[in-house]
């Protein structure tokens, strides 16, 4: 299908769409009475659950901090708490909507540019989150073991199976995710470059 064929099909389709009665006066009435809730720039429930989980984890570690005796585990606990505070902040920062442009006056290319910049920022922050999550995985295990009064070395197969399995799984997951994010970033960069050439 070439552009000319597309145009013919589009015109035929448009004629039929125009005959359709999609909007009713009642529907528009509801819109104008603000019964409708705009969903732009809203943060979803899953993000709130993630944030609460991180903060609940941090609170748990703070409460149980005194149970940790050794300095090295105390230090790891502080790092873990910091990570649990920082991770949701980064997520929130990356999810923060595009509030800087006016939908009503901005030109389409401007909006795309903002959207692309936002998308780039989002994926760059996601990559940072990925590294920090990996760090969290490393720090949280000895901290929890210390809180529960367990000697890491005494946990069966801790060094031989549990740690290597976690590392392999996370490294594989991170590699795939990192590659996926990088591919998206590359595409976004290309689209931005194309926009900037106009």
């Amino acid at each position: 299908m070439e552009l000319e064929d597309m145009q013919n099909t589009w015109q035929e389709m448009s004629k039929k769409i125009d005959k359709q009665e999609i909007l009713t006066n009642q529907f528009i009435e509801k819109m104008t009475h603000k019964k409708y809730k705009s969903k732009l720039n809203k943060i979803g429930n899953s993000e709130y659950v993630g944030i609460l989980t991180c903060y609940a984890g941090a609170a748990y570690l703070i409460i149980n901090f005194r149970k940790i005796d050794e300095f090295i585990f105390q230090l790891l606990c502080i790092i873990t708490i910091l990570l649990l505070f920082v991770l949701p902040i980064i997520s929130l920062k990356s999810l923060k909507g595009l509030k800087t442009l006016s939908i009503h006056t901005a030109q389409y290319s401007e909006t795309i540019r903002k959207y692309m910049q936002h998308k780039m920022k989002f994926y760059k922050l996601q990559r940072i989150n990925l590294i920090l999550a990996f760090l969290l995985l490393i720090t949280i295990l000895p901290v929890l073991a210390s809180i529960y009064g367990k000697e890491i070395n005494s946990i069966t197969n801790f060094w031989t199976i549990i740690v290597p399995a976690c590392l392999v799984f996370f490294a594989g997951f991170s590699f795939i995710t990192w590659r996926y994010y990088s591919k998206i970033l590359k595409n976004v960069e290309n689209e931005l470059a194309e926009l900037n050439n106009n």
Partner: protein
Amino acid sequence: MDKKDRFTEVVKTNQGLIFKVATLYTNNLQDKEDLYQEIVFQLWKSFDSFNEQSKLSTWMYRVAMNTAIYNLKSGKKQVNTIPIDLETERFAEVLDKTEEEKIKVLYEKIQMLNLLEKGIILLYLEGKNHQEIASIIGITISNVGTKISRIKDKLKSQIKTT
């Protein structure tokens, strides 16, 4: 005629425009319904600021297409929306099999384009001239011509590869 009546008139007259934008920037019925409502809502919000001097369709395309872009990021959020019937089945009743197939191919082709190209092609298919396209998109008139011929090449190469 008060503001609400004028708005209702304007939106009802141009509901096809909103339908097409909502269809082009979404992949499923739920998202399409959400985007449709969001566009109507944003049009209402900006109705006061609409400058009668500028073309009505320019304002509507601008708001609708910008809303579609903003909506890309927040497509999965759960919010209360007013149920509307955008069932494609209802629309399909007035189409025969060949037309339906043609429209499907048409949308598939457009979905392969990037956001800028998608916006340009939408306006081109809507019969807008280069000047109007340039004004809504925010690029120069000469660039509109260049982009359209690039899109043509892109579509041709898609045919060769498929």
